[in-house]
């Protein structure tokens, strides 16, 4: 229990740190008002704007107010579109979640089996097929995978649309693109953690008792090598949400990534700040959850950490 409380406290500190970091990065250039007002504004207009946004107050006070706003869920208003940032995000979030979920399912369904096969059939042709897939996946940038898929599947074969949101059909290519790197990472991690376990005594014991490969795999290996796999899955899921910026750009997918890009070119700082904050919070929460899942999969960890 102590462990759980400690981990939650740690996560809260990280969140606070992220919020602070974002606040100071946004003030790095000095006066954000100068970035917002039209080029030909007079000094007076600038002053009015500054006051309206509360930017005339001391930095410390601004910071406290900013934190207060965040923790009450008020993310401010967009400079460009006359709407609260939270509304803008809520419009886009479902699309990004769809994409990330689809990519995550692909990652689990493809990444883990490839890693298992490469480990179990080490030294045979199966490994020689699996390893290049992993290595290629790790070295392909998402935008190149996406463009290749569009060239082959959309332009040449005309099977699937190359952009837009039009039902499940248009989700397939973006999901594969977004998943490609995660598949490689997860497969690699699965392979190495199963290889590590394969050398253990209990595997030999099970084998000498006559257990089949399948039984050893599912009853013994998977459970014992699940910790690193869960970690990497958690991190990859959080990365999928962040990584969707590139994929959404390629496929004109109207999610958070597109919103980010649009707000950057419009210098709409409240929106950028909110998206980064959201992404980071999500990352931290997923990290926290994976750590808590550890304790459930492998009770030894919890005991060890509680003791220390």
């Amino acid at each position, binding site marked *: 229990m102590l462990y759980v409380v400690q981990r939650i406290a740690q996560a809260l500190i990280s969140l606070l740190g992220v919020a602070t970091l974002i606040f100071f990065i946004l003030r790095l250039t000095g006066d954000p008002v100068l970035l917002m007002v039209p080029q030909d504004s007079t000094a007076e207009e600038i002053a009015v704007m500054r006051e309206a946004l509360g930017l005339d107050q001391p930095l410390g006070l601004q910071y406290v107010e900013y934190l207060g706003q965040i923790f009450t869920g008020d993310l401010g208003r967009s400079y460009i579109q006359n709407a609260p940032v939270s509304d803008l995000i809520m419009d886009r979030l479902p699309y990004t979640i769809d994409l990330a979920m689809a990519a995550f399912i692909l990652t689990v369904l493809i990444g883990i089996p490839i890693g298992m096969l490469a480990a179990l059939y080490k030294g045979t042709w199966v490994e020689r097929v699996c390893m290049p897939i992993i290595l290629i996946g790790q070295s392909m940038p998402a935008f190149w995978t996406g463009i290749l898929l569009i060239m082959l599947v959309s332009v040449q074969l005309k099977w699937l649309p190359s952009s837009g949101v039009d039902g499940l059909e248009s989700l397939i290519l973006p999901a594969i693109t977004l998943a490609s790197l995660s598949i490689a990472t997860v497969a690699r991690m699965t392979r190495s953690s199963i290889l590590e376990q394969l050398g253990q005594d209990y595997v030999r014991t099970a084998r000498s008792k006559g257990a089949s490969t399948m039984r050893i795999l599912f009853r013994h290996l998977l459970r014992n090598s699940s910790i690193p796999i869960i970690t990497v899955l958690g991190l990859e899921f959080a990365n999928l949400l962040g990584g969707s910026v590139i994929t959404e750009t390629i496929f004109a997918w109207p999610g958070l990534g597109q919103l980010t*890009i649009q707000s950057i070119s419009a*210098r709409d700082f409240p929106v950028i700040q909110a998206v980064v904050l959201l992404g980071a919070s999500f990352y931290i929460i997923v990290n926290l959850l994976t750590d808590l899942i550890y304790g459930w999969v492998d009770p030894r960890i919890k005991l060890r950490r509680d003791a220390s």
Partner: protein
Amino acid sequence: MSQGTTTEELSSLATVTSSKLRTPPWKRRWFVILPFLLILLLFVIISIAPGLFAKHDPIYTELGQRLQPPGFVDPNGLTYIWGTDDLGRDIFSRVIHGARVSLIVAVSAVLVSGILGGILGMLAGFYRGVIGTVIMRLADILLSIPFLLLAILTVAVLGPDLINLVIVLGIVRWPRYARVAYSATLATVNRDFVKASEALGARSGRLLFRHILPELIPPLLVVATLEVGLMILFEASLSFIGLGVQPPDPSWGSMMATGRNYVASAWWIATFPGIAIFLIVLSINMIGDDVRDRLDPKNKRR
């Protein structure tokens, strides 16, 4: 302790000799890695002397001959072996000059983040206490922000340009090195040779730079090798969304962003820079894995 090492060394020596006797050269590790070393060498030569390879000006636009396919010959008899882009620029020359931009950004970013992270991690491990906690907590926080988002935010604020790109990548990536340097320092400060030097009256500065730093170089080098590949990918990604290298400077990422718009009509615009990125990142990953396996046999292929 020393005896254990000797037997270990002996047995590893034995396996080396026996494997040398049995495995044919094409199955040895250096042979597998050789093509990737050659590819990397080629890219390094290209980026040192792009003029040797590219005969066209990479930023010269000629709208009269835009979107010409590979092998196009202009009225002056000049060949464009990889075709031209939407502004009539030579793709081949842009890919060649893009290698230079890409490698310069990646290597500088790795140097900035490696030196920054190495020193901070070393200090955190050596002094521990408040300094150590602050540095390592900051590292944890930075690591808990999705990297691309943090880079996007920072570049959006600072404005996209080459120097800013290096600074951003450097600032965002230092925690990776700091963690490695931190744990290596913790493992080193209590070793006998450091204690002995301290007992003889060596000052902190001497301990840090004469005794601890050399121990940190190999693990940091492993991280750095793999990071070069990642930095190339990130530079390309940021350039792809318009936050990296700015036009008209050639960058593989921004070339591919153009290529995306002409994917149905002019496949060559995106394909050649794409192959270039893939080849160089693959080579660096393979070499990085090999370096890690050699320096740290316990941590094979993660």
